[in-house]
């Protein structure tokens, strides 16, 4: 009797919402409305196309949509690979051997936030479009410039993701353990550090991909057939299709986030359990 009475007595106080809790629910609902109302409006607008869903079907069956998306996707993948190859060893070495240089490296990686893309692209054109390099005279040259610019744009996202991942690992001890087993630096990076940064790398990679797919300024100035300029172009010429494209690209982004969540689930469990020992 006593124990059940005690339980009954505690139940109402648990379920009674406190003012703070109510406040946070209001903030949460406002946030959800702020993010989803424009999306809902865009979806409803796209659905007004006649015949019904034609904005979506036209987009998904149009070759220009897929070629632009495909181009940006390939450029994005190459950007991610180059970013990882550059940033992973740098972040690893900074954490392991020169931690004092971290503020400086962080400052460098933040530069893309303060230098607008238009300045970057003008700088690139000034440097590489003229003789002796004249990279923009051939398409692959412009592609190289585009990738270079995107690697710079991805720096803050990729560096921070990798650095956050490295922070969760005892990289000094893992490195020394691998060295005592006979592993050199290459093996340590590829076989020990890289696999344990899977979730961080995926986060950085998807952020980079999202930036590359949506980027307009640099691709437009370099006259590359990327997805950003494609959206801008159809936005000027058509009514409902840009809204459908926005919804589809939003869906693709959510799909990518879902992939991160699914792949990362196992690793998060591991980190928690190891930390409990």
């Amino acid at each position, binding site marked *: 009797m006593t124990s059940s009475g005690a339980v009954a007595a505690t139940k109402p106080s648990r379920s009674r919402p406190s003012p703070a809790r109510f406040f946070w629910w209001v903030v949460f609902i406002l946030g959800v409305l702020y993010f989803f109302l424009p999306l809902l409006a865009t979806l409803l607008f796209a659905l007004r196309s006649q015949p019904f869903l034609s904005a979506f079907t036209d987009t998904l069956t149009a070759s220009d949509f897929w070629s632009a998306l495909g181009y940006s996707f390939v450029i994005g993948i190459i950007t991610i690979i180059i970013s990882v190859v550059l940033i992973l060893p740098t972040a690893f070495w900074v954490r392991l051997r020169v931690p004092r240089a971290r503020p400086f490296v962080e400052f460098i990686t933040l530069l893309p936030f303060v230098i607008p893309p238009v300045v970057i692209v003008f700088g690139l054109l000034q440097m590489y479009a003229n003789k002796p390099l004249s990279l923009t005279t051939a398409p692959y040259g412009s592609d190289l410039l585009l990738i270079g610019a995107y690697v710079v744009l991805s720096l803050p996202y990729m560096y921070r993701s990798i650095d956050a991942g490295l922070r969760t690992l005892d990289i000094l001890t893992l490195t020394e353990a691998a*060295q*005592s087993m006979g592993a050199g630096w290459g093996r340590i990076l590829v076989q020990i550090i890289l696999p344990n940064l899977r979730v961080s790398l995926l986060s950085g990679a998807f952020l980079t991909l999202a930036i590359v797919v949506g980027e307009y300024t640099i691709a437009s100035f370099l006259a590359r057939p990327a997805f950003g300029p494609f959206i801008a172009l159809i936005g000027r010429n058509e009514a409902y299709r840009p809204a459908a494209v926005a919804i589809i690209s939003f869906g693709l982004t959510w799909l990518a986030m879902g992939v991160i969540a699914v792949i990362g689930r196992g690793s998060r469990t591991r980190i928690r359990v190891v930390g409990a020992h």
Partner: protein
Amino acid sequence: MGFLDLTDVRKEFTGGTVAVEGFNLKAEKGEFVSFLGPSGCGKTTTLRMIAGFERPSSGSITVDSADITDKAPHLRNVGMVFQSYALFPNMTVAGNIGYGLRIRKRPADQIKKRVGELLELINLGGRGDRYPWQLSGGQQQRVALARALAIEPHVLLLDEPLSALDAKIRVQLREQIRTIQRQLGITTIYVTHDQEEALSLSDRIVVMSEGRIEQIGTPAQIYNFPATTFVAKFVGSLNVVTAKTVDGAAGTVTIDGLPVRTVTPFQAAVGSDVVLALRPEVVTIVGEGEAASSRTANRLHAAVDEVTFLGAVVRTRVKLPGGTTLNFDTFNDPHAVVPALGSAITIGFPAEGCLVLAD
């Protein structure tokens, strides 16, 4: 020349901090040597120099007559076990143990066989497909030990491997480490700040303080005959007291004005201070009218200050007339009468149990 030789090893870090100074050690093949000392005494730095993670500022390190002082860590064939296990989280238990062998490009069947043998050795047979996070701390440390042993290292280094484990597992695992080490006959350096661990595991102990070696000896030598005040204070629970010299050549002193005989002659001016170490287990309570014997050659009157029941032993603290305190242990006897606090007693100890220490 020993199997592992450290000669005049010195380590000075940037900023001028000297971590290790004048370190000399010759460890024989198959020997188990412990580096014992408090935090910051340089024991881990010395171990890391053997592993190659730190480079000595001067001096040399040789293994089996080969100079490894400047060799990269991954070329030394030195196995290391870390306090935090340092298992690779992305690899299974078998993957961790076989990692060093895969680097050495051993055939897959050989690796599988060796991993199986080591899993049996550490009593984790059949758990090769588990991930480190699925194991307890003790099991993880056993896997780390097996991983270090898999490469058949010239020297096995253990850096406080039991510190992160609870007391019961620690005792079990240290016995297992000793058994495996004896079985494989591998030269082992073990870093610890736990005296009991060092005493129970080692063939020899190197006691360190402030980057220097205080004493090297067998556990019995270190415990029974501490060479310095530091060793006496750090190892075991010796009574370290200041005494006044009466006749150094005869080994006689006074503690709080009470005469005490030692068996070691020493050089000191009459009336000067010397430091004495007295093991708690050689001190006994002298009964009234008890005849003199060698066990109670030194007799001091004291007052009981505190009695602490520790299970198997009872530790009594007494105060001498001048305020000096001494601890002594007696085996627990349920029928024995424990001296009352404040009561006057006479304690006795042999001259052999009283050591004059260097500073």
